């Protein structure tokens, strides 16, 4: 596992504060989405508490709007970092007419956002990895400098599409980053049931590309590693695999009971490594953040999410006829 020197660079404190703010907003939003389900107000929730450093850290390495992003359903932090408003994410949670990502059709957190080149995905694990390879192939064929990043869990690496996509990208040296958020569980199946290796990154070697394992709870390490990898991609040095080791604090989804397969002791141990606490302590220690400012950030996030929930819940449902739209392109 790589541990990168994460001394704060001068002039970047605003950037780190911004990252921290987005991690907090992501956490508050995720907690709220789960609660809304438990209150019977949202039919389903899937969230990424615990993954914030991996998600926000990697997303901050991207050139938003130019680079292609294929998130998975846990990537609330990626979307918040790219600038999607909590209100819009919540419209998706409530499956409302104005849901900008799918018009209320997809389960929550299956985002599509053309303006930010966030590409639609299904619930089928790893199916979007070949899409990422294809997008990167097009970038190369059409001579564009953009990079594609695709996110997935370690369970996805058991799928054939993972193999096919990484292999294709490696053959053509495509500008694509395969970003694995390894939280140790594919729903209930621990990593030992999915693979006989310790590190997903080790798979990369089999395809002739470089794989790197990083501490996925260290936002600054994730940011620097992803930056470096994206730079390599942009220079035409081919695809890379990043494995960010992390842990999810919530069950897989609102329909899952993680107590059946995880001990509370294990959860406690990882809670002590909370990525948000870790960045906060670092920023406090370096004087970038004060306790007052931290309180203000958290209060602002709560307020923002409260308002967004209230507004999103009141938004109208799609009309019945809307179900027939966009099966195919409609004439202008």
């Amino acid at each position, binding site marked *: 596992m790589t541990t990168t020197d994460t001394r704060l660079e001068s002039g970047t404190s605003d950037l780190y504060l911004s990252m921290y703010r987005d991690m907090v907003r992501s956490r508050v939003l995720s907690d709220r989405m789960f609660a809304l389900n438990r209150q019977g107000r949202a039919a389903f929730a899937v969230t990424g508490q615990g993954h914030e450093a991996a998600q926000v850290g990697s997303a901050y390495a991207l050139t938003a709007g130019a680079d292609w992003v294929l998130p998975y359903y846990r990537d609330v932090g990626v979307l918040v970092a790219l600038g999607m408003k909590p209100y819009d994410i919540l419209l998706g949670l409530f499956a409302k007419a104005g849901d900008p990502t*799918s018009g209320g059709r997809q389960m929550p957190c299956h985002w*599509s956002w053309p303006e930010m080149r966030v590409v*639609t995905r299904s619930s089928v694990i790893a199916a979007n990895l070949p899409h990422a*390879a294809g997008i990167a*192939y*097009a970038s190369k064929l059409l001579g564009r400098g953009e990079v594609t990043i695709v996110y997935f869990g370690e369970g996805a690496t058991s799928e054939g599409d993972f193999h*096919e996509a990484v*292999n*294709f990208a490696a053959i053509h040296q495509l500008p694509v980053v395969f970003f694995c958020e390894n939280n140790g569980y594919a729903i209930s199946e621990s990593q030992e049931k999915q693979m006989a290796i310790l590190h997903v990154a080790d798979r990369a070697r089999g395809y002739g590309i470089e794989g790197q394992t990083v501490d996925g709870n260290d936002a600054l390490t994730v940011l620097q590693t992803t930056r470096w990898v994206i730079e390599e991609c942009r220079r035409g040095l081919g695809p890379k695999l990043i494995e960010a080791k992390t842990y999810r604090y919530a069950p897989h989804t609102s329909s899952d009971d993680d107590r059946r397969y995880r001990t509370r002791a294990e959860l406690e141990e990882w809670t002590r490594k909370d990525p948000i606490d870790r960045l906060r302590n670092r920023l406090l220690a370096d004087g970038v953040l004060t306790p007052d400012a931290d309180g203000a950030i958290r209060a602002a996030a709560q307020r923002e999410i409260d308002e967004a929930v209230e507004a999103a819940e009141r938004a109208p449902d799609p009309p019945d006829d809307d179900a027939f739209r966009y099966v195919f*392109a409609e004439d202008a």
Partner: protein
Amino acid sequence: MALKTYIEAIRDALIEEMDRAPNMLVLGEDIQEGGVFRATDGMLERFGPQRVLDTPLAESSIVGVSIGMATNGCLPVAELQFADFAYPAFNQLISEAARWRYRSYNGWGCPMVVRIPYGAGIRGAMYHSQSIEAMLAHVPGLKVVMPSTPYDAKGMLKAAIRDPDPVIYLEHKRAYRMLKEELPDGDYTVPIGPARLRREGDDITVISYGLMAHECLQAAEELAAEGIDATVLDLRTLAPLDRDAIVAAARRTGKALIVHEDNLTGGFGGEIAAIIAEHAFDDLDAPVRRLATPDVPAMPFNGALEDFLLPSREKIADAMRDLAAY
């Protein structure tokens, strides 16, 4: 005008469209050497290896990367070597391509063509003979075309390439070199959707598509000499389906025979029959009939068994006679 085989018509469409659209590319297994049926013969020399792309032997990613390419400004035309090998790509076709636009509420489109050689009669046995159209036409969001003539093969492939949505282009292997036709020079398209009346007659109606439409037309000409005058409707496109043409053709004679090479149960003929039952009931003069390959899991390699199982011009003619006499 020039005499072209079915497969030359396909190749001409690919080449002309690639000349027209620099963002178009073809990809698949063995594409660079021309493909196993030689559909892409000579294209590597003309367009180079980036746009005439040999893929790894992995059907899911052939379609999967095509979806990505289509999403990022390319016009991919993928070839799956045989319909029998398309199943590994079904997740990409059904769960991804077909739902791409719908699930993103028009945020993304998938202008992709997947060419798939299908069909039996070439002694191709269990895994080089299948017809898979019913499974694909069942899926809203996919367009499924099955041209039956070289003219349509070229015009519909061009229309498919210019279509903003994913089009499954099913081409019968046995048609490749068997069917020849004088084709006009230069650019033309045949729209996706409308069926075509190949023949008009008042005694019975035969509805088919793909190579079987050709066989039905031959059988109809044969029966004309016996005084049985048939209407032959070639659907050409299974999705979106020209329901009005089906209903009108069935109404015209009140006696409808549906012919396809795919096996019977759950075959596309069932859908056609249901449309006729729902919308032409008052005009029916006989039970709607279906002629299809029997429900055996796959085509045996033995030639006599294959001939026994496959619908043929003779079997079609017999079925037409029976229906005419009803």
